[in-house]
């Protein structure tokens, strides 16, 4: 149990708490716009950035962040080229990211060990600068959503109506992608690039089961995200499991529980 009181665990907890708010929040907009896979794509691209960061000796998370933001712009561009195939642009950028990452990995064989930490998460090695990055991203995301939640709701619900209302739809699309890129690159060290999209999508999937209103679903995703992160870290810490994997499996357990609960209510009544 003494792991829980250790300094590195408490850093992990703070980082996790922050990401547990922002990742599910961005996720709800992505899932409702049927862009669930965008998280995977951006995280794979940001791994390429992390690899480059190691290679040129620059703070890897920052390079990953730049890569993810660039990828989010590229996705928007490609989405315009293949209008009714939004998922195509996501798939192309994802493979591009993995390809680039694999080349950069092999170029600098010496840092393979470090990169694994970014693939599966290495929450217990969060540095001060990691925490600061996460905090800044959290503030940016929360402020943006707080100021634009009405418009984002309309855009997500009915993009055409948003455009007819005179809202700058293209700006909001780019904004959602860029904010997502920020959240993902800031959180890959916590849950890992391969798992980060679960923290975006599964809370949203849960909220679709129980929430009646948009307001409720925003509250639901944050609560579920936080429960998964806190409990997941505790369980991982006590039983010495991989934290990222534990958090994600816990999210899936919550999702299954809600599905069964909902079924129980239906058949019961």
């Amino acid at each position, binding site marked *: 149990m003494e792991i829980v009181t250790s300094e590195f665990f408490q850093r992990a907890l703070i980082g996790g708490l922050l990401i547990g708010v922002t990742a599910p929040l961005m996720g709800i907009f992505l899932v409702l716009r049927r862009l669930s896979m965008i998280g995977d794509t951006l995280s794979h691209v940001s791994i390429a950035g992390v690899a480059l960061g190691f290679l040129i000796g620059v703070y890897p998370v920052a390079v990953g962040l730049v890569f993810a933001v660039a990828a989010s712009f590229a996705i928007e561009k490609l989405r315009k080229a293949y209008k009714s195939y939004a998922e195509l642009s996501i798939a192309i950028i994802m493979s591009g990211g993995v390809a680039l990452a694999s080349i950069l990995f092999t170029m600098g064989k010496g840092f393979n060990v470090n990169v694994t930490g970014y693939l599966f998460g290495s929450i217990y090695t969060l540095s001060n600068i990691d925490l600061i990055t996460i905090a800044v991203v959290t503030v940016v995301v929360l402020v943006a959503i707080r100021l634009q939640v009405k418009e984002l709701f309309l855009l997500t619900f009915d993009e055409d109506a948003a455009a007819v209302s005179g809202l700058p739809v293209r700006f909001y699309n780019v904004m959602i992608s860029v904010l997502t890129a920020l959240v993902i690159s800031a959180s890959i060290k916590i849950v890992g690039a391969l798992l980060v999209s679960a923290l975006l999508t599964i809370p949203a999937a849960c909220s679709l089961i129980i929430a009646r209103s948009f*307001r*409720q679903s925003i509250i639901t995703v944050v609560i579920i995200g936080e429960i998964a992160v806190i409990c997941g870290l505790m369980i991982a810490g006590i039983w010495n499991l991989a934290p990222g994997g534990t958090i994600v499996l816990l999210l899936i357990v919550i999702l299954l529980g809600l599905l069964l609960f909902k079924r129980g209510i239906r058949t019961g009544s």
Partner: protein
Amino acid sequence: MQQMTEMLPETDVLPGPAGDCHQDIISLEGVTFSYQQQRVITGLNLSVRERDFIGLIGSNGAGKTTLLKMIVGLLRPESGVIRLFGEPVGQFKAWEKIGYVPQKNAFNPLFPATVREVVLSGLYGRNKLFRRITKSDHLKADDALHAMKIEDLADKRIGQLSGGQQQRAFLARALINNPSLLILDEPTVGIDAETQESFFHMIKHMHQHHNITFLMVSHDMEMIRTYLGLHQAAQSGKLKFYKKHSHDLQNCAQDDLTHSLRGLRQEMDSREEVVQVGDRY
């Protein structure tokens, strides 16, 4: 001098030389649009004036949706000019004057949003950026819900409503700003005949008694014909336009129309009573 002024003919208050008090709501001049190589719309001219009801009919691929998207500025014409309320679309800012009702199946049925949240979203335009939702916004939503007789459904999830109720919710969203122009994109696709009937009844009533101009895309020839008549106002390629004006020239001075949404419900209800009484005897 004084005598002169007194003697000025009263006709001065009448409209100008055109003899028409109705402004152009939508005007298209020589509008052409192509997707890649394919010409969809060629040299289309159309003038929609205040209080017109325009029915737009065309088979799939005739360019109905394309035309709508150009009118609301989502697509740019290859050539030609589109004006809204006399202003080129690119410079048009008063989007709150336009209500938009999408196709029924345009949204994800699992979407977590209540009817009230959807109706309120009709207010979220440019003017509302960075502003909070106020009490008076909620009152407007109440009025719109009431007018569409869906006040009891306000807290239900939008996906739980029947097709007809959803359509009322979207109409309430479109009406919340008291629009001058209402654009409906195949509003009754996937709704049963009886519900369609009452939906059209409501639309017709609004056209006759409110200062609203309508542009409705439909594949339902029958409704268009019974209300707008057989006379084709314009045609361009496979697009056909039918038109009815609810306001005759001599009525230009008349302005005692009910504008409020509260009034709409009252009128609708009182009419229904008349119909019921009429049926009984």
